[in-house]
């Protein structure tokens, strides 16, 4: 199912160094990277961020084309934001002006920063999702939610819910195709007519999907309880996350990269 892959962030199986890292390290590093993107304050800082990203892409051993595919769906949003920055920012030398709109050197500078941030943040997220299976990502999220337990947040239940959602996305995608085909066969044309007509045609698709999902939820709940599922019992894991030497290396590298970025802030460029 092509759609399922887009939504699940396109994990690409592999055995690279990045693939084998602990998902907690990868999730944390990804967040960390997104934060430090905003620490860069000159072109050298951004250059360094791009170098780090390039190294990570090389480590993932995945084709560059894949990362381009991560950016492509957001292309218009990026273009729009950059254009706004370009036309509405002020300061510096004025190259062109028309009423409120002006292209200035300041605007160029601002829009270049926005463009760089977009590319960096989207691509680092693609590195994470392309090298980490969804269930491992969920396990990492659960690990980070763990401290919330002391605030009486039901971390276990949230984790189980997250797992079930991820597990059933492909199932519901299949179901959607099936019901769509059945209704097409009964003469529905899903992709023609005005917006309102199209919205109306969703009824014969959405109602069966809702009914089916509730039914499946009920069956799953019964099956889980029949096998003794207790939401409050302490949970064990099928795949236990282990900290390896490589994970330490990754964390140290992250610290070094951050340090270098901090140094660039004080360089006179």
């Amino acid at each position, binding site marked *: 199912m*092509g759609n399922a892959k887009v939504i699940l962030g396109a994990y690409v199986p592999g055995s690279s160094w990045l693939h084998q890292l602990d998902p907690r390290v990868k999730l944390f590093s990804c967040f960390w990277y997104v934060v430090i993107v905003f620490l860069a304050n000159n072109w050298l800082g951004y250059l360094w961020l791009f170098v780090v990203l390039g190294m990570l892409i090389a480590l993932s051993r995945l084709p560059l084309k894949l990362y381009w595919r991560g950016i492509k769906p957001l292309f218009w949003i990026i273009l729009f934001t950059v254009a706004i920055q370009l036309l509405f920012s002020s300061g510096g030398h004025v190259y062109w002006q028309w009423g409120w709109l002006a292209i200035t050197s300041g605007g160029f500078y601002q829009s270049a920063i926005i463009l760089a941030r977009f590319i960096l943040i989207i691509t680092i997220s693609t590195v994470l999702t392309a090298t980490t299976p969804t269930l491992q990502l969920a396990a990492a999220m659960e690990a980070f939610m763990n401290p919330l337990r002391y605030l009486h947040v039901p971390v276990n239940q949230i984790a189980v819910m997250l797992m079930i959602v991820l597990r059933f996305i492909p199932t519901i995608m299949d*179901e959607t195709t*099936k*019901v769509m*085909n*059945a*209704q*097409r*066969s*009964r*003469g*529905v*044309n899903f992709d*023609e007519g005005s917006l309102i007509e199209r919205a109306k045609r969703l*009824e*014969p*698709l959405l*109602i*069966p999907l809702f*009914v*089916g999902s509730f039914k499946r939820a009920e069956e799953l709940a019964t099956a889980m309880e029949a096998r003794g599922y207790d939401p409050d019992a302490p949970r064990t894991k099928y795949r236990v996350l282990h900290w390896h030497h490589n994970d330490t290396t990754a964390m140290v590298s992250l610290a070094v990269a951050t340090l270098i970025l901090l140094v660039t802030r004080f360089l006179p460029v």
Partner: protein
Amino acid sequence: MSAIEFLNVNYAYQADTPMATLAVKDFSLKLESGSFTAIVGHTGSGKSTLMAMLDGLLVPTHGSLRVGEVTIDSHADKKTLAKLRKGVGYVFQFPESQLFAETVLKDVMFGPLNMGVSLEQAKEQALTALRSLKLPEDINDRSPFELSGGQMRRVAIAGVLAMHPRVLILDEPTAGLDPQASEDLLNLVNQLHQKGTTILMITHQMEQAARYADHVLVMKQGQRTAFMTPHELFGKPDLLKEAGILPPASVDFANQLVVHGLKLTDEVPLTIEQLADQLADHLKQGGRANG
């Protein structure tokens, strides 16, 4: 003129990507108008893909197919596909999952209305279809979700029949039904066949293929392994073995008799009744049970 014709049809999922998989390979076949074809084969043998193309839900990657006067190839536009669907009804596996309307009657009228018939006409067609499936009239104004599983199945099938398709595709229509409901349903399908509807039925139960179909299409890895009458097919144990098909119990029984030295007739007993008749004839002619 034959009702249905496949000409060198190919279908690839995710065509033009490295992950392309050929589900149907160079498939050609002619089916007579008013015929009853059973389609058998393992999961992933291309049966459903083939049927989806016949209903215009998928368009062949290469080759073409024709249903009546409508011809479909890789360039078919939406109008042609819609025209194709008008003449073809498709009862999917577990069709009860397609019910959505507030009342049974409205759900069954949905198809005919989409085909562009008038409200009264649609209502009439719906009522006739519901009656032919022996559904009690008092359920017409109830929600389809209040019905039993078997009734929901029948309402969903009525929803397809109400469109008066000339070609009817059924994908394992009896899966999950009790024996009585299965037999009722198959008898109804047979009646439609007698009235001239061209029937294509995907099934895993060779008893059904043997009893009702006039031809059996055996699919394997996207290609046709055999297309012949049940008599021919079930009389060829080697072919069955190669295709991984277990013959109906009656054929199996007769084959076991042959192994033990008793040949009843040259005719393969396709049903338990035929087997019983053959055995009775044999005994009447003075043959002993142990040959």
